[in-house]
């Protein structure tokens, strides 16, 4: 039981993932994002080796469909997996194995994929796609977060009779560096997507400061000073 959106931004070439689930600490499975390479996720009954294999195959020039065929051939339990792959050109491949549990499925668009299992119904992946496409000019992390929030609002995981809350969530975006651009996580919470949104808003205030401090340490103000400047602004925004 998990729902996810992975996407490629045609404007910037950035790739990323937004994910939420009932399981604890889902972020540890989101190691399938790589700058200038692509993005992938394996969920449902996870084959944890898939992400590293996918990224290596993409780097060698395999297209997503061909990569998926390799995964299928490499895994006797492929029909228990749910997998999404997008390459650096935005090509998409998706697989929802027939033995994943509950309502499971995916929806694919140009440069994006919404997928989930153990969901209340197909409306959840529809909503994730709509949420992701709602503001196509926005930054990728914003669109990914909108995607999973829309999935939550459409009922998320469980059955129509019995909803299951999101206990963990993650948001990861890579651009052109060997490290992530955005990498936010909620590992254990009662409303993990709400908490992810809170962390995102909080982090956004610091993002430029953290980046600049690393690149130009000579002129960096101490973080305490930065935080002190931040707080009056926050208070005004609240008022």
């Amino acid at each position, binding site marked *: 039981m998990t729902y996810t959106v992975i996407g490629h931004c045609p404007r910037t070439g950035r790739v990323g993932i937004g994910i939420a689930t009932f399981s604890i600490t889902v972020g540890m499975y989101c190691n399938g994002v790589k700058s200038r390479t692509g993005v992938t996720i394996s969920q449902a009954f996870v084959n944890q080796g898939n992400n590293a294999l996918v990224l290596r195959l993409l780097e060698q020039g395999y297209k997503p469909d061909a990569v998926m065929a390799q995964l299928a051939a490499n895994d006797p339990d492929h029909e228990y997996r749910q997998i999404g792959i997008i390459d650096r050109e935005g090509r998409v491949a998706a697989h929802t194995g027939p033995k994943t549990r509950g309502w499971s499925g995916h929806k694919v668009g140009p440069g994006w994929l919404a997928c989930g299992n153990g969901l209340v119904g197909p409306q959840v992946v529809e909503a994730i796609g709509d949420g992701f496409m709602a503001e196509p000019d926005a930054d990728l992390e914003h669109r990914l977060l909108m995607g999973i929030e829309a999935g939550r609002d459409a009922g998320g995981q469980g059955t129509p009779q019995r909803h299951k809350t999101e206990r963990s969530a993650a948001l990861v975006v890579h651009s052109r560096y060997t*490290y992530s651009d955005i990498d936010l996580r909620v590992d254990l919470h009662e409303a993990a997507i709400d908490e992810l949104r809170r962390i995102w808003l909080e*982090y956004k205030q610091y993002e430029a400061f953290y980046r600049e401090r690393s690149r130009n340490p000579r002129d960096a103000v101490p973080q305490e000073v930065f935080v002190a400047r931040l707080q009056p602004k926050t208070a005004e925004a609240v008022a």
Partner: protein
Amino acid sequence: MTFSVLARCPTTGHFGIGVATYSLCVGQYCDGLRSRVGATMTQAFVNQGNNDLALRLLSMGYTAARVMEELAGNDPHHDYRQIAIIDHDGAVAAFTGSKTRGWAGHRTGEGFAAFGNVLAGPEVADAIAAGFLSQPELPLEYRLLRALECGRDAGGQCGGEGHLTERSAVLRVFGDQPYADLDLRVDVHDRAVDELRCCFEAYMPYRDYYRERGRDPVHAMPQEAFVARLRATR
């Protein structure tokens, strides 16, 4: 303002890291671990390119000390960085740049480094090391978490205005796989090390279940059933 412990388990060869800091979302900087290759962390004024470069050099066979020299040669702001590197033989290199802020320093021992900046004092680095060494027979993740807790209890971080709380923390271990063996994070919290302990205690009962479910889906029980069983045994 960060305190960390980076280590290689002499029994298993696994690599791990524990970090706590006043900054938000520190886990995003902890991408410097790779199974059978080594472990590294750059903090203080972070050079985010360092981790990937260090791992590539380690995988080519450079020793930890040699990698550190390369990082120094590659960065005009090396003086502002705090860096630890452990290679797959367990050799440790540590560096605390002269321009890192507050009390900054490191302690190294066999297969581990305890290091931090903007700390209450040297007693914090000493406490992290002592915490890590206190129960050497335990699995690596327990030792790393204990080390962070000892660093916190020894005063942790201290800026110009006094004590700074831990707002984010991370605990990560790589075993023999190309993915993390354990990977827990707290991104924004008032007492992130306490919360990391909560996540750890909550996660550990699930760990084998999650692992086994992926490896043998044919025989996996539904998570609801597992959770119910877990509750019944408490």
